[in-house]
């Protein structure tokens, strides 16, 4: 196929389309709502490009493939912050930090002075932290808009509507593709955005907590994205308890967040396969790109590269499986 149909305009679809355009293919992107917005799971993402931190629970391919992400996004002209990730724990959970360190790489321990030097607003609040210097973060909504506009400028066609999931196409529909991917499931995530002009953080901060782990990602204009629950369900309703947990943990991170304005509360269900690893799957003439789980912006670039390798060069990617059903 010289012209390629891409179904789905979330982070997977837009990255695949971008990668195919860069290799000289004409691309048509079909989505019920092709403009980035709250209808898509990617809209609610944290936007952390943190392969090393994710290695705490994710399997090896996530760490390795995720290492491509920051450079890829930067090459597309997306604004990126490359200030690393700071990982902390409250006093009574301080051993969590050692466990986290044992299971990850690419970090160094900071003491009180070290923490004050990188994040002055956290001075005196924590004795120890883990710094992952080679990680980055982006604003997912800005990144989606950027890809969308750039694809349009390069001549990609966006069609608003339903597309048949059969025939030659790249199916990037996320959880909606459950009609053809029976082993796909939803993992619900709830998040919030707060406006806290009194708090300044330069990089994502992860608070390790045995019950309520939290991450806080700084966004522009004094806003912070806080996330995220991880619940085995494809339900898309925000629960009071989840928000309570997120906000309590946020307050524990810094009491100044108590004065923050609650700007937004969001929820969606992440598409995941049973091993929580992403896959390319061939279904007849269709190639499904799915299962990015909580790693949409982290893994989409590698998935897009492998999809383009397959379509343009016939190169079978490592995360490929065949559907013989």
């Amino acid at each position: 196929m010289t012209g390629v149909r891409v179904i789905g305009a979330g982070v997977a679809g837009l990255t695949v389309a971008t990668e195919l355009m860069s290799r000289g293919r004409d691309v048509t992107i079909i989505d019920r709502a092709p403009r980035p917005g709250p209808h898509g799971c990617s809209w609610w993402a944290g936007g952390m490009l943190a392969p090393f931190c994710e290695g705490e629970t994710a399997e090896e391919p996530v760490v390795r493939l995720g290492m491509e992400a920051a450079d890829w996004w930067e090459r597309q002209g997306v604004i990126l912050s490359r200030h690393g990730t700071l990982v902390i724990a409250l006093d009574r959970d301080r051993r969590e930090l050692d466990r986290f360190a044992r299971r990850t790489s690419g970090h160094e321990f900071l003491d009180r002075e070290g923490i004050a030097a990188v994040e002055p607003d956290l001075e005196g609040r924590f004795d120890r932290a883990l710094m992952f210097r080679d990680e980055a973060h982006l604003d997912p909504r800005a990144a989606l808009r950027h890809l969308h506009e750039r694809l349009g400028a390069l001549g990609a066609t966006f069609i608003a509507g339903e597309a048949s999931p059969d025939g030659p196409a790249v199916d990037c529909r996320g959880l909606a593709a459950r009609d053809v991917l029976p082993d796909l499931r939803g993992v619900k995530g709830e998040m919030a955005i707060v406006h806290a002009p009194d708090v300044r953080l330069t990089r994502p901060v992860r608070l390790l907590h045995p019950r309520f782990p939290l991450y806080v990602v700084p966004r522009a204009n004094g806003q912070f994205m806080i996330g995220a629950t991880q619940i085995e369900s494809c339900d898309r309703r925000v629960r009071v308890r989840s928000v309570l947990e997120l906000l309590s943990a946020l307050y524990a991170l810094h009491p100044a967040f108590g004065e923050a304005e609650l700007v937004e509360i969001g929820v969606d269900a992440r598409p995941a396969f049973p091993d929580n690893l992403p896959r390319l799957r061939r279904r007849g003439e269709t190639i499904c790109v799915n299962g990015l789980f909580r790693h949409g912006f982290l893994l989409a670039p590698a998935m897009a590269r492998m999809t383009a390798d397959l379509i343009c060069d016939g190169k079978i990617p490592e995360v490929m499986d065949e559907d013989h059903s």
Partner: protein
Amino acid sequence: MLRFYGTEIGSRLMLGTAQYPSPRVLADAFRRSGAGIATVSVRRESGGERAGTAFWDLVRELGVRVLPNTAGCHSVKEAVTTAHMARELFETPWIKLEVIGHTDTLQPDPFGLVEAARILCEDGFQVFPYTTEDVVLADRLLAAGCEVLMPWGAPIGTGLGLTNVYGLRTLRAQFPDVPLVVDAGLGLPSQAARAMEMGYDAVLLNTAVAKAGDPAAMAEAFAKAVEAGRLAYESDPMEPRDMAAPSTPVIGKAFLE
């Protein structure tokens, strides 16, 4: 053969299904442990309209008996409602009854527990109450209709092991014929082995396996410990004594140097 409410139980290790890195790792842990019973949290994952179905299907595919629980319930009413939802979803009268009395320690609420147990037993449920090692409370739960008791080793998720060995020993001695399962607080296989050596019928754990670096390997380690502990219990272990007693007699032994 161990029986819970008349059902023969093949494995004395029971595992929770929460907090694993992925459902595949969860399945690997069950395979390697040979655990025969899986506890599933109904409340958190439900979200009405059977939204958690995909995960529950994965649990059903493990091919083990499902023991749904009322984890996270803080009142009798909540626990009873959740139990009904569980019975409908999993088509089982079994319910692990948790009524949490203290948010920070997740300590059971003994009063609410007895009340909820009575309501559910009268309604035909087969109740597995998550309780403390208190013998009076145990007595009340049995009077309410429970035929299995699940005393804690330590608070949920702490991995502290058996924090009140005396209490657990007393409970075992007081109720020699009631199936007793140490539930919660285990962090290491040696702690599980100890519970089994004390004559506990089974152990139930989640975090120690799910949060291990290699959950499947840790699941197998627990399975071996449970087997070793049970075998030791059945072998009638020696009593500890203060006097050294050589296993070969010294008197009459030839001195060669």
